């Protein structure tokens, strides 16, 4: 654009530039930059490079794959789906009525067998299936400012439809996410001895420290006609409501686990754990599953063979490609950079394609 401008102005201004007969040379000053001759590395994919790239990738990937597969195999995981089993068989025709009724006894006892030795800490998760915690309407229904400090209590924008209680006062914490807080509880016992579950430090330290204020106390929470989930202890600041903090870290996928607590004793194989579940949470209205998960952990997280398999596959593929290319280079040798292969030098009949 500016080039255009100078061209136009040189005709119009006619100042000293073009008319004066000075012989200032406009010859561009030589520099490697302006002449586009900066020193440069011009890598070319020679057979050597190609084969060694594939080989190196294969050699790196296969051990990683094996390591993660091994780690995944060592993780011991107990998964117990209880959403149906915890409803008395007679009432299973109308699960919704069962869960919504205040009268029904929602206590339910499950017995789990430890398949292998489990080293502490053993993480206790609940897993919800088909619960779209990532639904746009749901994800947006919160107010991070309100959670942070007491002075923002009235900030309930974007919290609809759980912004204000029926008396018009703001709900703290507002929004659908907090309203739908998971409220099943578990009590574990091992051969009639209570198994302690540590419910401290299950949330992110950063969330406890900065996101959820220690001067913000629940107000007007679950006071409406429609109860979504757990009630909160109004005397505890939000920064100590770890279940809420965990819940408010909305999950990425429709099926997710949330940490409920940690069992800090080792369990041995074939031990029987009895779990008394308060089956309060309504996942029946949308056909969601509820699972209780006890799991040890490893460097790749929970029990998941996918990554190990993926690494092994890619590693194997790369080794295979390395060998294929070795064969190709032997089968069709071509000197690199031979001008006789240029299309105008090679005779028309002998086209490579």
């Amino acid at each position, binding site marked *: 654009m*500016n080039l255009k401008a100078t061209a136009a102005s040189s005709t119009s201004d006619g100042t000293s530039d073009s008319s004066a007969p000075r012989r200032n040379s406009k010859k561009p000053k030589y520099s490697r930059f302006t002449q586009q001759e900066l020193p440069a590395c011009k890598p070319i994919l020679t057979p050597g490079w190609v084969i060694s790239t594939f080989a190196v990738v294969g050699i790196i990937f296969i051990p990683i794959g094996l390591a993660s597969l091994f780690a995944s195999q060592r993780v011991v995981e107990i998964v117990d789906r209880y959403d149906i089993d915890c409803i008395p068989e007679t009432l299973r025709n109308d699960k919704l009525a069962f869960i919504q009724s205040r009268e029904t006894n929602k206590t339910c006892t499950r017995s789990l067998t430890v398949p292998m030795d489990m080293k502490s800490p053993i993480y206790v998760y609940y897993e919800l299936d088909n619960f779209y915690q990532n639904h746009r309407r749901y994800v947006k229904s919160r107010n991070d*400012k309100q959670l942070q400090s007491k002075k923002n209590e009235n900030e309930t924008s974007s919290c609809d439809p759980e912004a204000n209680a029926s008396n018009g006062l703001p709900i703290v914490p507002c929004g659908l996410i907090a309203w739908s807080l998971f409220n099943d509880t578990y009590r574990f016992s091992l051969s009639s001895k209570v198994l302690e579950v540590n419910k401290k430090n299950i949330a992110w330290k950063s969330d406890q420290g900065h996101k959820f204020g220690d001067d913000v106390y629940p107000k007007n929470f679950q006071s409406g006609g429609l109860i979504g989930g757990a009630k909160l202890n109004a005397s505890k600041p939000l920064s100590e409501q770890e279940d809420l903090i965990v819940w408010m870290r909305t999950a990425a996928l429709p099926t997710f686990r949330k940490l409920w607590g940690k069992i800090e004793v080792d369990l041995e194989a074939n031990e029987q754990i009895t779990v008394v579940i308060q089956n309060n949470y309504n996942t029946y209205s949308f056909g969601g599953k509820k699972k209780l998960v006890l799991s040890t952990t490893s460097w790749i997280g929970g029990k998941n063979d996918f990554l190990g398999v993926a690494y092994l596959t890619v590693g194997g593929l790369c080794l295979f490609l390395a060998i294929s290319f070795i064969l190709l280079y032997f089968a069709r040798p071509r000197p690199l950079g031979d001008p006789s292969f240029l299309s105008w030098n090679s005779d028309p009949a002998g086209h490579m394609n």
Partner: protein
Amino acid sequence: MAHHRPLLDPSPRTPPSDPSPFPFSHTTTSIMTTPPSTQNYASAPPTSSASLPYSSSSRRAASGRSKPQSGRVTIGGSDSSGHASANLGNSASGFSIESLGPGVGPGISSSTRRRYGSRGAESDGYGSSQREISDEDARLVYINEPVRTNEKFEFAGNSIRTSKYSVLTFIPRNLFEQFHRVAYIYFLIIAILNQLPQLAVFGRTASILPLAFVLLVTAVKDAYEDWRRHRSDRIENNRMASILSDGQFTAKRWKDIRVGEILKIEADQTLPCDMVLLSTSDPTGVAYIQTINLDGESNLKTRYAKQETLSRMPEKEGMNGLIRCERPNRNIYGFMANMDIEGKRVSLGPSNIVLRGCELKNTKWAVGVVVYAGRDTKVMLNSSGAPSKRSRLETRMNYEIILLSVFLITLCTVVAMLHGIWLRTHLDELNFTLFYRKKDYSGDEEENYKYYGIGMEVFFAFLMSVIVFQIMIPISLYISMELVRLGQAYFMIRDAHLYDEASNLRFQCRALNINEDLGQVKYVFSDKTGTLTENKMEFQCASVRGVDYSGEKDGSNGERDGSSVVVDGQVWKPKMKVKTDPMLLRLLRSGTEMEEGKHARDFFLALAACNTIVPIIVETPDPMQKLIDYQGESPDEQALAYAAAAYGFVLVERTSGHIVIDVQGDRQRFNVLGMHEFDSDRKRMSVIVGCPDKTVKVFVKGADSSMFGVIDRSLNSDIIRGTEGHLHAYSSMGLRTLVVGMRELSTSEFEQWQSAYEKANSALMGRAGLLRAVAVGVERNLSILGASGIEDKLQQGVPEAIESLRQAGIKVWVLTGDKQETAISIGYSCKLLTNDMTQIVININSRESCKKSLEDAKAMSKKITAISAAAQNSEGGAGSGRVPLALIIDGTSLVYILETEFEEELFELATACSVVLCCRVAPLQKAGIVALIKNRTEDMTLAIGDGANDVSMIQMADVGIGISGQEGRQAVMASDFAMGQFRFLVPLLLVHGHWNYHRMGYMILYNFYRNAVFVFILFWYVLYTAFSLTTAITEWSSVLYSVIYTSLPTIIVGILDKDLSRRTLLKYPQLYGAGHRKECYNPKLFWLTMIDTVWQSLVIFYIPFFAYKHSTISGSSIGDLWTLAVVILVNIHLAMDVIRWTWITHAVIWGSIVATFICVIVIDVIPDLPGYWAIFEIASTGLFWACLLAILVMAMVPRFVIKVFNQYVRPGDIQIAREAEKFGNSRENSGVEIEMNPIPTPPRETTQ
């Protein structure tokens, strides 16, 4: 003898009546002088003429002819085409046509180019000004009464503003201009959509950010440019000029000059406005001006003050009068006005006005009255920007953009439909589900909470998905492309290989949006004179009275001194030295007795006298020595004048009434009694001089074809035959030839001529026609003096350049105004034609023969192709036995072919030939030939030329290149690129064009890929969010993705990456074929890229998806993983395709990745955002890094494998050349030498 001043307007007594004269005979013929095709072209389709500034006037001329009674023509009416808005005066029309018709006259063609002071033009202006300029249409200027002048209409002051904005108007105007781009409108619509509460996908700030960013960048750029313009305006406006006020000239700033004021200009000053000359220091009222700022011509032109005003001294006696002139218009060659002074009405024409930007030369002072000032001046009206063209690649790209829009709409429709289905299947639960509440129970009444029914929800989902997936349409690509082109232009301008030492000119990029077209040029249309040749005429040889004096090549050194003249003890030397022939010198000095010597002297006297050259005496450092610089409009005349000087006939002085010639030391004064200037109808000029020996002689020079008709053949048939032979020999050597003749007029003949001449000169109507009749009457029965051969030297490196272009598969066509022999010989000398070519010459002058010869030619070309094909087959396909064809066609033939049904045949024939040479073509025919190819093929055309006659062709072609040479800046002003030498075409096309094409093609594909891969990731995720358009990637990352995370590397690679070095590209011109084969950007590549895009997006999305399937992963954490994965992947992808890694490339690619990490971290340390601290939580796990590594490798493997496989098994030429560049040294040492095949074999179809 009465003092005669033929250059003055001899008829001041113009009766201002006669409302509808029709002095068009001249106009008509002046159009006719270009081959008759001009008329055909005048009615050319709008495509070919709308963009040509001249064609509209020629069309008007045509219509003017058909409607002679339309005496009154609206002047200054606005013209939507924007060109030549008011040059309706027939003088203007005829004039501009004439100015377009140089190359027609073979010899002194250039002298016709622009003849401001020429008689013909003046008589035209005279004729047309007879028509009343009605007061409503006219601008009334009261001389020396600026107040009265400006009373009624406030005429523009002289302050100019090239700047677009002021401080106040900048924001609204700049925004208005920016939103002219479709891309920004798209941005705006998306941003507005996002402001609707139902659709607010992104936060308000985030959604406006990209638009604000590009607007800001562009605004800053515009502001900077405008600031520079402001600065130059300020300098310009504050220059000083002297203005008459209160009886004396006082200094005044330029910006304060007003219309109607009287202005005095001293020698070497620049004109601040357009003014009508009143008087000059020359008693005859002549002023010499240089128009280099106006049209770039460096020679001097003459302007005249009217006789009525020239003797008056306005500062002493005051001056009153009224000038009635046409409204401001942009025709710099036309001016129509009349002046009422002392009760008389005087007509004013283009020769009476001096335009802003001109410089007064060789005249002590000039006084004039301001008629146009400031923005009304012709130069300001003409300073329009470069033409805007759109590159081929961009046009192609727009198809793919449409495809991407289809993808986008498909994705959005899919999401919207699925959303609707999901809603329907969950309809019963929507009220009570924990994550989707249809109703709001908090109030007393239960209301729907943001729920509008399935239909509306689907519709909203569609619009929301448009917002979420908006970057599928790579808007940032348009901005990146602009920046890349700017960078490419920077390197082209700075390229030392494109710098012309001789003219001290760098390469110029005037159009910034067609850089990449340079890489795909298939046809080059070149002008000859000044483009292939230097247009520096040099006198080479002469034939005097049938004897050839060609000079000996060896003995020339000693004779180069040239002659000199001693005036007042000072030595005056001609500025240019000419090689002289010793024989001829001896003959000249041999004394007066010999007949041959007398003729030789007459010959050189004719050369010295019969021209319009003005000798200018230039000081040298040595006070005793001065140089004589011959200034004139025709380089041929200059060459002849220098030649005459070298042989001792030094033209030392020219006034309007006489010339002084130093004849071998003896200063002689010749009275110029009359001059019949060149016109392209007669194709000769003559001058009638009164010699010191009281004889009156007429000297004539002109093209051979016209001269042999007026030579008395009975007198000297031997000489004529000899001269004809020499002429043939000269033109076969590529020389431009002229024939010179003379006749001595008897007293009665002279008187007869003089009375006719005076009568014609004072005629009111058809003066030009009458004058021509007078000229024809006197130019007859000439005795032949001789002929001259002038060489127009080939520019340096032209044959090599043409050879390179041909090897690159580019067809070079030469379009010239020269005659056939000259054209062919130049063709040979620049290696365009070779001896193994079969020439097809089409040279016809009737419709019937045209058809026949075209058919013959086609049959012949088929036969030859068949023979060569057979030969090729019998040889078993080894080598190419094709016989190349050369088509030579002349302008007259083209008249019968272009725009008729034969066009198609010519096209087929011409494309079958490897060389096409068109001679004697008119400017508009040049455009017609370009259009012939451009309209019928997809191939890119490039036109290169240097003169005004090439303007139409340059504008017609896809790429127009102007050579800034001897013939002014007209071509440059119309061009897209300008440079100094023809040979620069080779580095420009083969090197820069190749690079630009490669870079731009790759960049477009990469940008498509880069944006689409991101959109697909978003899309896959939407499938797992109940189609509710949640994005795991934060909105800020979505917005910054194409602005910060990934933009810089592609721009830098687009500017800096080079697939091959300059050396290799010049060594193997065939590599240019990559652009012809569209190797860097084609639909196949697009679809491959899109498939790769889908694969990569699947890998990026699903590896984390499966790895974190049953885990506690939060949306923000996995979003950060996806963000980083996609940014690193697209940068690695780019890194894999980068060919040259300089430190800048390294910095920018790895820097982008680092910048992304930093941005993600910054976003995640803001506690207000839901993703607080997510990156730290996830990055502290091993799984995160394992996923990242797996994504990168898995996503790249297919592309890498295909790339390696293709490069090894099916290497393209570029790949082999790259390898050769790297490993070639050892090979060259081993002595394997591959012979370059000079004849291009048809390029391989594609590398499949």
